[in-house]
């Protein structure tokens, strides 16, 4: 299938900090793609760069959505092209109600009948939110806020959904629930680009995985191959490859990721 999103060799600076050092990726239409990496590798920065959230960036490189370049244009125009973004740490409006959030999520749309249907659809995905329709979002729990952030993004009817660490700060059961809903959303035709720390979960639902280190992609492959890869197992999944009889680890597997 055709690539919905193509990022070609982008470089991003935060002032003088060289954060993304030439990264390329392609997201196939209808797939789930996962980006993994350590803290500070630049995972969130890639998503922010795609959304045009960092002023005057990317410094170099091309970002193409649906075959058309989208770098250096305003965030709201990128949103109107059909990319929804769930930022890290939820970013909800504390003093708007759940219902108002969902209405605001559809801010760029004009079809009020279908907006109503979509609100029902979001409540079907996240039944907890339905009981909180008229409650201020600031009073919700962390998990509910995450669900609300995803629901708000879905109200856009996006072609591509960017998710930045949806599992952040959630209990294991909730993580499972959210990931199964992500899969369900994908099965209805929304392409998903996912950034995660929880490598196991991310690789188990995605079709392609990429590993980011120090602003460069160092590994790319089918998710099920990555799950079997020795280095990925050791460094991301926390499975020790060898143990001594006494349980001491005498040596550590090392890998220069470049």
């Amino acid at each position, binding site marked *: 299938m055709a690539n919905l999103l193509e990022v070609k060799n982008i470089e991003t600076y935060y002032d003088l900090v060289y954060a993304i050092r030439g990264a390329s990726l392609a997201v196939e239409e209808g797939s789930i793609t996962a980006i993994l990496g350590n803290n500070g590798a630049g995972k969130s920065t890639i998503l922010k760069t795609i959304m045009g959230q960092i002023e005057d960036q990317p410094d170099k490189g091309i970002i193409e959505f649906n075959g058309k370049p989208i770098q250096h244009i*305003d965030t709201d125009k990128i949103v109107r092209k059909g990319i929804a973004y769930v930022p890290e740490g939820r970013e909800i409006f504390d*003093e*708007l109600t759940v219902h108002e959030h969902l209405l605001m999520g559809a801010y760029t749309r004009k079809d009020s009948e279908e907006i109503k249907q979509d609100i029902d659809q979001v409540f079907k995905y996240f039944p907890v939110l339905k009981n909180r329709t008229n409650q201020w979002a600031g009073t919700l729990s962390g998990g509910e806020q995450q669900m609300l952030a995803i629901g708000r993004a879905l109200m856009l009817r996006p072609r591509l959904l960017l998710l930045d660490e949806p599992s952040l700060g959630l209990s294991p059961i909730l993580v499972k629930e959210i990931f199964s809903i992500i899969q369900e959303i994908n099965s209805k035709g929304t392409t998903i680009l996912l950034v995660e720390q929880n490598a196991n979960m991310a690789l188990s639902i995605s079709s392609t995985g990429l590993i980011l280190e120090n602003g460069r992609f160092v590994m790319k492959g089918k998710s099920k191959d990555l799950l079997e890869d020795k280095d990925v197992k050791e460094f991301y999944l926390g499975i020790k490859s060898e143990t001594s009889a006494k349980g001491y680890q005498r040596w550590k597997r090392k890998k220069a990721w470049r």
Partner: protein
Amino acid sequence: MIDFIQMIVSGVAVGSTYALMGLAMVIIYKTSEVPNFAQGEMALITSYFAMMLLTQMNMSVYLAFFLSFVFAVVLGCFLEFAILRRAKEPNVLGMIVITIGIEMIILGFVSWKFGADQKTMPFPIGPYDSFIIGDIFISKLAVLTLVTALLFMIILYLFFKYSKLGLAMKATQQNSVAAQIIGIRTNRTLMMTWGISSLVGASAGLLISPTIMHPFMMWDPMLKGFAAAVMGGMTSLPGAVIAAYMLGIIENLFGGYVSIEFKTVVAFVIIVLVLCIKPSGLFSKHYIKKV
């Protein structure tokens, strides 16, 4: 007894102008968290503009007022677009200083262009036209101001509660990053806020101008309107209006029964008390962030 009722009536009358200024300030504060100290002078220049149209161009009152309101909206949008948006790495304090700068520029411009002396505004209702009920005088202008203030309050309240643009304005204030990523043009939203606020403020200016018209005429209403907005919690529209009327009435009663010299100071004593006892304002309900 007649005195007492008369004082309350004139308190409500003066409270209405405070309410309009308070509303105008609350609108801008709601979206950008900046108290706009240029609010009074924006209304001032609009009033002078209206006077110019009426006296020099001999326009009809309705056309002149309509054009003045258009002028007010354009002025508000222009100030946001040309000055505040250009601020590099803005923080709230910097923005406040910028609004004070705008205020002084407009004040200087008006004094230079029109002179600092008292002018008369050819308003269709004179300052002394009154209804007389029993022994109580109610000025027609005060009734008009009251109606305008309440009308604006209701319209704005509904606007912020139910309209898409109003919601977008609230969203922009609460989290501008999140507002951007759902497709709100935050810059344009802020500009429209300034336009609407300028319109509300200008209506106060036009309603004050028949009584007093000189470059400092908006000082008192602006500061009292700000006081009312603080009392009402800075983000609550009905709160600002109720506080404005309380302020007007208390001020008048104090002037009548205690001391006429210290009448204008009362408002600020009340602010200090409110900030000491309930700093979030009398009528605001805020979600307190859990850390």
